[in-house]
């Protein structure tokens, strides 16, 4: 054997020696379990039934698990989780757009560059911060704590010495809480002033760091923070929304219903015109060769966003006169419903005579509240079982309505994490906030630093404005970065959502995403490891298909 061959073999052995630990680790901890889960997906393995202690082995059942999740008895849960996952993907384009915007802002010098002006700016920021902190503290401070006597005379509703004493203690606690809140908000303004000052002094790097800070926080800390912000009462977001809701309530009650319908329709028409115009422009630019595939996809997403927003806002405006946007209760029975229920009660075995039934309805008058009718029946029917059956008949016809507004309690802000309609948007909002200043922003910043300045300069000399320079130079140059971000974000989005749902909603209120569903199947619902593996592989298929699609569109865009 030649010396060269021996040396080559030696190099090969050394290379393998370095690579092998990684390969072994990958095979044992990644490839092995992945392949094992593929086998599991074709079995009926339930850990409670098939384990060493029960002495039973799982059976091979072919594609049965996939049939069950795609169109069998599990399909409803699978597709619901799939829908939830897809819904939450909305935050990806918004987050990417936000990241790009922030990256563009942070890609140029911020604040005055001359030293004297810079330090003047720093001083002004600090003074403004201190002034804002001081004035906020003075405005928010509840003043001196009320004496017990003053409280007793003001709280006429509370009778008796003991009751006053018990409640007064709560007043003291509330006062302490308000003082602490005033201090906290004042400190916030002080901190904002400080951060601005540091930013002005330190330049863009400081702001980049601040924007990236959320990414440095542990996920669970962020989730708990947002959970607190989303509290229906007392949460910062709803406390900010409440004045807007009050204003809107005033506007609704003092404005003719027709105006709201007209506004709603106007928004729909406006959105339709906007979508049409954007589509026409996009098609024309595509035909002229100005738009690549990526630009076309961006336009399509913009059209979809405008259409969805227009539909939603228009619908909300049309719902205003019905006063049924946010809160909950029961609607009064209409005359027709009341007549139908009366007939129903006559036919049922209630033990009441027709005269007695008529008396109940006549006493209640024209607008019949379901609960009052139920109470009347309960007090009129002697046999308990019959009374309950009659009440059940009545309440089964009651229609839940949003009572808070109708009852004059004011238009209520969303209940966010405890409301099926708002839980997903709440998670999306949080996701966008987290994504905007995260890793995507850094990638865009890196991409922007690679845009050749001479191209931008040439465009400027040719008379291109800021928008033109972005659209024709920066954006195409960022295509590879955008392509990478879209692919990674889509994969992450399809795999994600578990942590948020687990920490904030326990998977309730329509936030059970695919990963949460897998967890539930595998580790809580009778440990159905086989079925859970099938869902995981179905999810893999979806992610794979999406990635292939992204590659197809993205590659074409890159080549354009």
């Amino acid at each position: 054997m030649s010396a060269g061959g021996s040396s080559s073999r030696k190099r090969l052995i050394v290379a393998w020696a370095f690579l092998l630990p990684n390969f072994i680790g990958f095979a044992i901890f990644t490839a092995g379990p992945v392949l094992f889960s593929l086998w599991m997906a074709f079995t009926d393995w339930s850990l409670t039934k098939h384990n060493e202690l029960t002495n039973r082995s799982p059976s091979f059942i072919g594609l049965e698990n996939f049939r069950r999740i795609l169109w069998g008895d599990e399909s409803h849960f699978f597709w619901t989780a799939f829908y939830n996952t897809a819904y939450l993907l909305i935050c990806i384009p918004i987050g990417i757009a936000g990241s790009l915007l922030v990256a563009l802002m942070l890609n140029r010098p911020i604040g005055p560059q001359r030293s004297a002006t810079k330090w003047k700016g720093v001083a002004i920021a600090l003074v403004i911060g201190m002034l804002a902190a001081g004035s906020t503290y003075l405005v928010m401070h509840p003043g001196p704590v009320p004496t017990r006597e003053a409280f007793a005379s003001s709280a006429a509703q509370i009778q008796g010495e003991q009751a006053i004493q018990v409640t007064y203690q709560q007043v003291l606690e509330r006062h302490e809480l308000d003082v602490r809140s005033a201090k906290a908000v004042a400190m916030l303004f002080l901190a904002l002033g400080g951060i601005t000052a540091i930013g002005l002094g330190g330049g863009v790097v400081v702001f980049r760091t601040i924007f990236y800070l959320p990414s440095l926080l542990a996920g669970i800390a962020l989730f708990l923070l947002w959970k607190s912000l989303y509290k229906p009462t007392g949460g910062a977001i709803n406390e900010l929304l409440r004045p807007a809701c009050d204003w809107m309530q005033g506007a609704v009650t003092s404005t003719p219903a027709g105006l709201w319908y007209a506004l709603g329709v106007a928004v729909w028409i406006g959105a339709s015109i906007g979508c049409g115009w954007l589509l026409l422009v996009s098609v024309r630019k595509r035909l002229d060769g100005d738009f690549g595939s990526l630009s076309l996809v961006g336009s399509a997403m913009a059209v979809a966003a405008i259409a969805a927003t227009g539909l939603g806002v228009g619908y909300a405006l049309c719902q205003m006169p019905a006063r049924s946007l946010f809160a909950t209760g029961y609607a009064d029975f209409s005359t027709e419903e009341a007549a139908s229920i009366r007939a129903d009660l006559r036919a049922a075995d209630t033990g009441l005579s027709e005269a007695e039934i008529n008396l109940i309805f006549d006493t209640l008058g024209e607008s019949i509240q379901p609960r009052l009718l139920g109470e009347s029946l309960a007090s009129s029917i002697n046999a308990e079982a019959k009374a309950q059956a009659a009440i059940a008949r009545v309440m089964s016809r009651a229609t839940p309505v949003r009572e808070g507004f109708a009852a004059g309690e004011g238009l209520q802000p969303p209940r966010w994490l405890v409301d099926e309609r708002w839980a997903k948007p709440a998670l999306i909002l949080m996701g966008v906030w987290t994504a905007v200043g995260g890793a995507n922003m850094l990638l865009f910043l890196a991409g922007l630093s690679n845009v050749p300045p001479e191209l931008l300069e040439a465009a400027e000399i040719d008379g291109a404005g800021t928008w033109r320079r972005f659209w024709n130079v920066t954006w195409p140059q960022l295509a590879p970065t955008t392509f990478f971000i879209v692919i990674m974000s889509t994969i992450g989005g399809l795999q994600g959502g578990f942590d948020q749902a687990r920490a904030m909603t326990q998977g309730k209120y329509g936030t059970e995403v695919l990963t949460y569903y897998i967890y539930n199947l595998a580790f809580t619902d009778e440990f159905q490891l086989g079925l859970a593996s099938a869902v995981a592989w179905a999810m893999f298929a979806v992610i794979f298909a999406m990635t292939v699609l992204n590659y197809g569109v993205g590659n074409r865009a890159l080549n354009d």
Partner: protein
Amino acid sequence: MKVLFVALVAIWSALTFVGVIWVLPERDADRGMIAAFWEMSDLPAVVAMERAYGTWHYTEYGQQPPRFAESSENAANDPQRLEQESRFRRWYNDSHDKPLSSVVRLVWATDDNPARRQQIQLFRRWYLQNYGEPIDVVTDPASRDTREGAQVTKPVIQSIGGAGADLLETYGPKQLEAMVRSGIALDVTDEAKQHGFEYQRCFDAGWSSFVYNSRQYGFPANVGYTVLFYNKAMFEAAGIDAPTGGWTIDEMRDVARRLTVDSPDIPGGRRWGIFGMHPWPMALSNGGKFFTDDGTRCIYNSPQTVAAFQAYLDLMYVDHVMPSPADTASMAAAGGFTGGGSGGLYFASRLCAMTIGGRWEYATYAQTNFQRVIEPALRRAAANADDDTGATIDRIIAALNRDILTPMSDADLALIRTSLTADDRARLLRIGVAHVPTVDGRIKYTDVGARVAMVNRKSKHRQEALRFLQFLASKEYNDRINGAFDSICGVIEYCTDAGGISGPPQPLPGLEDFDSPVFVQAMDGAESQQLSPFIGPERLGFLAGRVMDQLMNGRIGAAEAARLIEDQVNNQIQANVNRDPELKAKWDDLTAGAKR
């Protein structure tokens, strides 16, 4: 440079080695055992041991050691005690075949709290007394699932993998079923008969938590229903008589209306009349059944269920005397980011006048009273007292700060009472106990809460673990449960004393109803949870839970909720039966029998 690198690596390795040797293993793990010897100094075996230790000590140090009984009275971190422990450990390890730290150590998957540590110490002493050998128990709080009705994920996976605790902990029939079906729970029926911890000694309402198909799989560490706690001061102030016996939801609603107070000065703007009623037990206590007797069909959509659901909704959305889930999410009694908390915390913060809770919450209430009222009052009193009284007060404060459940002597309790001013007494959280109201006013409880210890079939210390179950049936243990407000004990004979609860020490002011007969009455005639062999408990909870969430948030009405639950559960039963031939045969058999 190379030398520096090698030196750094060497230092790092040495530190890691020291860490592994000294930090990772639990140091002084045998302290509990030493304390058990000292505390049991009257036992003949320990008397002999003390004599032998004394001889050795004299030889080694030239003087007699302090008596075991004296050593045990020193505080845990007292330097003298630590020195004594160190000498005793040396003697024991030298004079026995194996060191004290290597005696059998059972792992108990339970939470770690002062009450549990007391119980473990009691077990060490009990074991020494009954078996003449030392034994140790350590808790493993991470290996349990505390949520009642939830799946026992960690215990199942760990136990099947061979890494489970010796003693497992479950709550309720659903978790028992999972443990038995997985083959993890050891059948202890024969041993129970032999050693006197058979299930017949316990409240029959709790049997479903540890008896499955007439076989026994554990023993209850405690049992108890959630009852209704009310704020006595609020009741007295409103001139409302305390409820006695059964009462209806309507009666409770009237009371709650009178106790609900709106004021911008109250945190959250409202003090609620009632907190914590739940539609599930409300429906069951109203006679609504979940399954047919054979479990083949869900029959939840009944007038009884609908009426109970409606009553529940009315409390929140019509009468506004109970917080809705949205209101609850906004209540942060603890002031943290938890977005809520237990009814006990709200009650302790006086954000509600009544709440549904268990006897174990007395510890929270005792803590609340101590921190807010009693400790400041004692400190004021100490400032004006003579030296002896001041020292006594300091001792009381230190003892209660260390463990709020420390038994108080009559003299100490009298001193606490005299330290309280009239204002202090008005600020005390005084708790009354009443039955949970039902739609029809009958006293009826369902869904017993039983914390059950069971033996892992893969335990390497099966014999010792079985003796632990025997200990759970002992008078010593059950008296301690009653005394530490850890719900109530599982054994009937140790639980009742003239209609109340036997054994507890004097409670702190405000908690005088600690021995209310309501706690025991709740167990009489109570019903166990219904399960069906045709649907897993977790899927059942998932299906019903989703609908319940919608109901509780007022998104659907009572009748629709009952109908949806029944339809979805029956659909799932059908799907399960169609998929599993064994299940189908069983279902066919039962339904054919029913038709015949």
